[in-house]
């Protein structure tokens, strides 16, 4: 199980890989769509890569609730617990 800081760092790497955004731009309060300009197709790729990296399941219907980076970090941390 990773702590939230490690989850954020891992998520930032996934976002960087998919979108080219610098990892330091991926901060907890940022919105995936409004701040990071991530479209729904990229979001699905990020979700699937996060499932693999953190060994969790993120159901499709849950994805729309992951509005900010923090939402995703919290969800992954809870799913791992």
């Amino acid at each position: 199980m990773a702590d939230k800081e490690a989850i954020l760092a891992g998520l930032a790497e996934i976002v960087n890989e998919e979108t080219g955004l610098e990892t330091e731009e991926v901060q907890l309060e940022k919105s995936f769509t409004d701040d990071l300009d991530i479209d729904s197709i990229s979001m699905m790729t990020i979700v699937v890569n996060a499932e693999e990296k953190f060994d969790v399941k993120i159901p499709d219907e849950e994805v729309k609730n992951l509005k900010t980076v923090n939402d995703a970090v919290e969800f992954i941390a809870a799913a791992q617990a």
Partner: protein
Amino acid sequence: MNRTAVITGLGATTPIGGDVPTLWRNALAGTPGARPLEQDWVAEYELPVTFAAQLSSPVADSLTKVEMKRMDPTTQFGVVAAREAWADAGLAGEGTVDPDRFAVAFGTGIGGVWTLLDGWDTLRTKGPRRVLPMTVPMLMPNGPAAAISLDLGARAGARTPVSACASGTEAMDLALQLIRSGQADVVVCGGTEAAIHPLPIAAFAAMQALSRRNDEPERASRPYDSDRDGFVLGEGAGALVIESEEHARARGARIYAELAGSGVTSDSYHITAPEAEGLGAARALRAALESAGASPEDVSHVNAHATSTPVGDRPEYLAMKSVFAGHLDSVPVSATKSQTGHLLGASGAIESVLSVLAVYHGQAPVTINLENQDPEIPLDVVTGTPRQLPEGQRVAVNNSFGFGGHNAVSVFRSI
């Protein structure tokens, strides 16, 4: 309205040059693009053909990591060529062209075959959740045209002519129609292909279309030679910026040549074999000359389709013979697939680039590997060194033919 169309920008990524200056230099020198394939899958699938003409410069050098990931190689190659053509035309930068008067016509023979088959592998080995969400936009054959319209800001339509190995030349035809009819002032047109994948290789080999000269890849593509035994699969893209003459003159653009005419016909004869007397090809050639307002005697150079297959090269000769008659003896013919290999849906675009440069510079590129010319194809083939074309107005013809009986011919005229 019947407006004149001119060519103001050229771009290419090919097995004998990752940009147009390198392509042209190598095409004049005579440079074999075919090399042994080093991928593991050649041995893994025991492919009967172990070589191809791969790109000479990796496109990863000019695209970002994210672009590479989100584009099938077909689109990657097309975007690289289109960007070069756009910059070459002096159009890079904001606000140089009205987007509503700017169209794209970009063909491919096969489309995103790598994405399709990689996705199938992923589905079978890892399940549906791991199939990339970008799979559909990456594999669709209109992907390259769409990506170019997004990249360069074209809003007057992004179209995709698909006619196998005639696709690139049909894109030229479409561009000419768009300019002549007044539907667009600027068109980026061309063709792209990225089919050096084990499945197309196995499939083309199964139909006996590919050369099996595995010991000597560089000598395998030999159009018009008695010992030709099939084509060499190539990959890459070519792009041209076509403008109305009025638009090009108004902005003081450098004009390479006029896109003077084009002709498209279909054989309605056989799904793969060309009609043996070249009748459909001859009709396309006549239509293209008529469209250009040129007579057969005006033609100073032909870039032939000439793929190096035993059955394909002769009907094209017969077509030229029936149209040019006695004048054919004074038309230097270049079969540049001897160097580049056969880029399928990109071939017409690459050969259009070479034809434009031939009339612009007054030089015809060379044909390599012609050691024993087929006596049934007595053409004046340019071999050894480039041929100087006559001074004054020069007219070049580019022929492309595709499986399905597609015949497309473009005519380029010096300005």
